[in-house]
């Protein structure tokens, strides 16, 4: 356990040396757990941080999704990254989070860094209304063509009869 923990610590340290303490600045929970690394980047710096994470060896986006926090008036966007082609990093899932204000939900896309983020970002766009600048196809994917309600995964959207 200690050995695998050292890999995670080393990755976090290398990110810290590049971007400072802001990489840990998440108001929710600790940054390091066994096989889990939680990082944070502001939306201005996220492409830069993502590039650095990719260079470390994380080559696939396993999941990307948003969470709506109407109380704090923000959206939190999580990218979960794995390494399929790097023996040392294989057990680790790295989460890269960012916060967006609810009245201006916009951030630049990470499809240029990881191509596998493409459909995930499209899905987050239709479910939350978060706009990804520079995305090749920012259009509806799963919802019906005639959807005219607010994006369904926002908290103010309530299910009928609930």
């Amino acid at each position, binding site marked *: 356990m200690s050995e695998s923990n050292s890999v995670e610590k080393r990755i976090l340290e290398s990110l810290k040396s590049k971007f400072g303490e802001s990489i840990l600045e998440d108001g929710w929970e600790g940054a390091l757990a066994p096989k889990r690394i939680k990082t944070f980047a502001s939306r201005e710096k996220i492409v830069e941080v993502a590039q650095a994470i990719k260079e470390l060896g994380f080559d696939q986006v396993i999941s990307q*999704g948003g969470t709506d926090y109407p109380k704090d008036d923000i959206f939190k966007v999580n990218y979960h990254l794995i390494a399929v082609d790097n023996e040392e990093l294989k057990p680790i899932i790295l989460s890269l989070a960012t916060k967006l204000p609810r009245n201006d939900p916009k951030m630049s896309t990470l499809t240029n860094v990881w*191509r596998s983020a493409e459909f995930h970002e499209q899905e987050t766009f239709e479910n939350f209304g978060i706009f990804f600048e520079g995305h090749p196809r920012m259009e509806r994917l799963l919802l019906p063509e005639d959807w005219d309600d607010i994006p369904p995964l926002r908290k103010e959207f309530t299910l009928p009869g609930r």
Partner: protein
Amino acid sequence: MEVVERQGDYLTMSVGPQHPGSGHMRLIVTVDGDIIVKVKPDPGYVHRGAEKMCEVRTYIQNIPHLERPVIIDSCGILFAYVLAAEELIGVQPPPRAQYIRIIMAELNRIISHMYWLSIYGIFMGHSTMFMWPMGDRELFIDLAASIGGTRVTFSYFIPGGVRNDIPPGFKEKALKTFDYFVKRLKEYEKIYFNNPLVLKRTQGVGVFKREDAISLGVTGPNLRASGVASDTRKDEPYSMYDTIDFDIPTYREGDSYSRAWVRLEEMRESMKIIRQAIDKMEAGPVKQPMRGQIKGKVGEAFARTEAARGTMFYHIVSDGGKFPYRVKISVPSFRNLIAMSHLLEGNRLADMPVIYWGLDYWPVEADR
């Protein structure tokens, strides 16, 4: 795959959603003659809003509808949810329950691969290969149903263990079935996998290069067919997989043929895993009893497992209430969908069913 831009008339047509070869999705295909130039997938015909529904259901009530997206692999999709929910609720399943989970997950993997194999057969017009796996699949369905109660949707894993013990006489029944099935697999190889007609249609069709497969986010058997030995059961052993000895079959070619072989080999490995799990299982409780309303602690948890189609990932955020605050389901089919247009472009229209189903894309799972 390189597409040579050609002068001439392009024809755009949509394949599906009512089409014998498409399932419940639509592909908008542009062809030049019979060469596919461009493919735009149009999923969402079975989008049922599972992620939103999770927010108004308790951790237990979420179980039945979370396994519906992929009912042929219902334990596979539920496994990661249960692991993430256990982390939030703070319960640990007893060891016997963990072995039973492995047995069920692997049985589901075989059931899912058999369904895939039979449809793969009928897509190539090989009716025998539809009938044989579809029939032998029933043996494994009977095995799983004797534990789970229903034929495909078991609602069997719950946070804290499994809902019931395995029935008496399961071991003998399972071993008898495996002995039968191992011999059947050899016949499958004869009539299908080594059949020259099938070789001609699948070898070198829909080739995925290793780098492309990684960068596009392809997962599961499709990734392993391209030479990347990536399997969550080995990478990040969850449950009791670290006590079990098994191999990950990988192939280098990355074509439709090797994707079929990966799945065939995986069925053999799954039987190996179940045999070991049955032997290692000791008597004991199968569930940690819980009293009162189940609540998750404030925070977030994520877990991944290896389902039949690839890595299943759940991200659950809890605000301390009885309902999860947000459940993000990341399913392998959805991540394989991006590869579809990449693979189809430049191939012939006649090869489309082989490539499409060779990816084992399950629309209901992708749409959620």
